[in-house]
């Protein structure tokens, strides 16, 4: 089985689906001849031609607006937003158009696409190359939001997203784009959206994470084990649809929950998860549900290591929960 990083896994998934489905087209800034600034679409234009791997003018609203028209007509566009920080000019098209076409036409039209975009900090990118904007889209009914943490999941989830009837935002953790390596099966396999993965079984504290933060959580859980704290770690993988059963099953077992994300805390998805756990597991809780998150500030350049939740900060939260 080949070893791949996340970029290679994304590229592999796109290639497989483009070979299988002639309706799949990739479009975005620098995605064609250059193969994308992170090289995720490298070689696709050579194989599939410039009609299906399209270099667009520099305008995110135009990329998503035209992708919407393509999707309405029956193609399966895969627009790339070069950095998720640049997605905001396209938000009207995503939130008011793409997300609402099926609903507002009474199901007469659908607007299914996969919007791929690298997100997250830890790459010395400052606040225009580091943000985690998933919550804006989680607050929009009609959209699905998927965030893989590793190459195996990236490929399987992307193949599912490409076959999903609804629009999907596919956030790729760019800090671990190349650092996260793993065995990835050759050929076609799909991981259903909406299934969390229990990456570490444990009995004392449930820790929820997704994307790049899963790696910090995994580190923290290993260190906690050395201290005698038995963590159960869930990689949510898909935030909408959300695997609420996996979450409640785990928290009912452990009685303790820590939620980790790198987006700012206020109204971050951790707030929703905390509320859901509280509503569903109240009588099982042994400690307050805690959040380890980014700060309620823009993403900093110089002090990003202090902004980002890292394993030591997560470990402290795990300890506090275990000893409450």
């Amino acid at each position, binding site marked *: 089985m080949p070893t791949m990083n996340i970029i290679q896994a994304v590229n592999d998934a796109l290639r497989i689906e483009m070979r299988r489905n002639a309706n799949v*087209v990739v479009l975005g800034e620098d995605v*064609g*001849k250059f193969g994308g600034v992170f090289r995720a679409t490298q070689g696709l*234009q050579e194989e599939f031609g*410039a*009609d*299906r791997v399209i*270099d*667009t*003018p520099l*305008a995110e*609203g*135009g990329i998503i*607006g*035209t*992708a*919407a*028209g*393509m*999707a*309405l*007509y*029956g*193609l399966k*566009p895969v627009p790339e937003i070069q950095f998720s920080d640049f997605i905001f*000019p396209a938000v*009207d*098209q995503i939130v*008011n*158009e793409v997300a*609402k*076409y*099926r*609903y*507002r*036409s*009474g*199901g*007469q*039209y*659908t607007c299914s696409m996969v919007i791929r975009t690298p997100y997250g900090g830890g790459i010395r990118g400052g606040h225009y190359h580091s943000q985690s904007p998933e919550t804006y889209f989680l607050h929009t*009914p*009609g959209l*699905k939001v998927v965030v893989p943490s590793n190459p195996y999941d990236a490929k399987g989830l992307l193949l599912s997203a490409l076959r999903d*009837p*609804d629009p999907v935002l596919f956030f790729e953790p760019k800090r671990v784009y190349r650092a996260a390596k793993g065995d990835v099966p050759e050929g076609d396999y799909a991981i259903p959206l909406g299934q969390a993965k229990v990456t570490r079984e444990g009995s004392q504290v449930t820790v929820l994470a997704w994307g790049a933060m899963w790696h910090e959580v995994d580190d923290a859980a290993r260190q906690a084990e050395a201290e005698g704290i038995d963590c159960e770690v869930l990689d949510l993988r898909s935030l*909408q*649809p*959300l695997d*609420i059963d996996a979450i409640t099953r785990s928290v009912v077992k452990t009685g303790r929950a820590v939620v980790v994300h790198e987006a700012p805390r206020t109204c971050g998805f951790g707030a929703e998860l905390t509320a859901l756990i509280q*509503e*569903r597991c109240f009588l099982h809780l042994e400690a307050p549900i805690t959040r380890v998150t980014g700060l309620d500030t823009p993403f900093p350049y110089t002090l990003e290591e202090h902004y980002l939740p890292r394993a030591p900060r997560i470990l402290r939260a795990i300890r506090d929960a275990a000893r409450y």
Partner: protein
Amino acid sequence: MRPELEHKPSRQQVNEVSAPKASHKQRPEDLPLHQIISDDGGADTGPSTLPDSELVRLYRWMVLSRLLDERMVGLQRQGRIGFYVAAFGEEASIVGAVAAMADGDWIFPCYREHAAALYRGLPLARFVCNLLGNGGDLILGHQMPCHEAWRPGNFLSISSPVGTQIPQAVGAAWAARIRGEEMVSLAYFGDGATSTGDFHVALNFAGVRKIPTVFLCRNNGWAISTPREAQTASESIAQKAVAYGIRGERVDGNDLLAVYDVVHRARARAAAGEGPTLVECVTYRVDAHSTSDDPRAYRPPELVEPWRRKDPILRVRRVLERRRLLDEAGDARLASEVRDEIERAITEAETYAPKPPLESLVQGVYAEPLWQQREQLAAIQAELTDGEGSEPSSA
């Protein structure tokens, strides 16, 4: 232009793609106002390609649009429908444009083109159901009145945010070209929309890629209370095309024959691989923006009067009279038939259930409802079962 940006013509376009690139010859000052019917309808100032039989048929659509608008504004005043957007005075721009497109072409409406939806086959009664938001509404009561969609006629779904449909029209035509299918999209929008980013990205993308789209601006002079002069410093809307490297056309938007011919030519150029056209229909919003608006607050009535004399329906009627295609009695008969058709549609619309089913609250958000939506719907159903006034139960 980089080699990969060159459009490779699809099979059916190969013979036509070598046509001259007229767009590159245009300058902003080269945009005369195309007109065929004189202002008062008394004479034709040039030849028209529209056959007489078509002229009578399109006249009927314009009359339907006018009488429907009058009737529906009346229903809104009576409180029977919540809201209405009429197209008074803009019937030639709307009907002329849709009629000039091929049957399979996709129509991306603004929100004033109900006549185009009906022209494309949306049953009139179903349109009235949309106004009522009732059980017969094809969009399940999910949007305000006048936000109809009609998939069988390739008439897209209407969005209230202005201009969003313009890049989508480009994307649809682009998709057709990728598939090697001859489809030209038509995007309707108003003068206000030309200020949006979506207008810019759409014309820019379409220009770069020579996408087969007809951009049809109904320049009716007003965006609610904002006059055209406060919308753009450009002398004309059409001249904006020059900057995008595409063709621009200015046409008398109250002249059915001229609108038809200009759009027909724009469509032919697009289908031949010669790229998009920005058509500016110079017309006038002689009435309110919508039933929620009162133009007396911002517009002196004397501004409107000259445009009433250029009424697009009166002008076509004069043409029909001159060509002896319709006399006064025939016209009265036609109007009476159209009125009957509208009344029958209202009667039929009112036979549907007054509201869509409760389940429609969660229908069509996703292909299948999420667990959250199923739980939330169940909670509302339980409220109804428990009787009025009961508190929603917590999950």
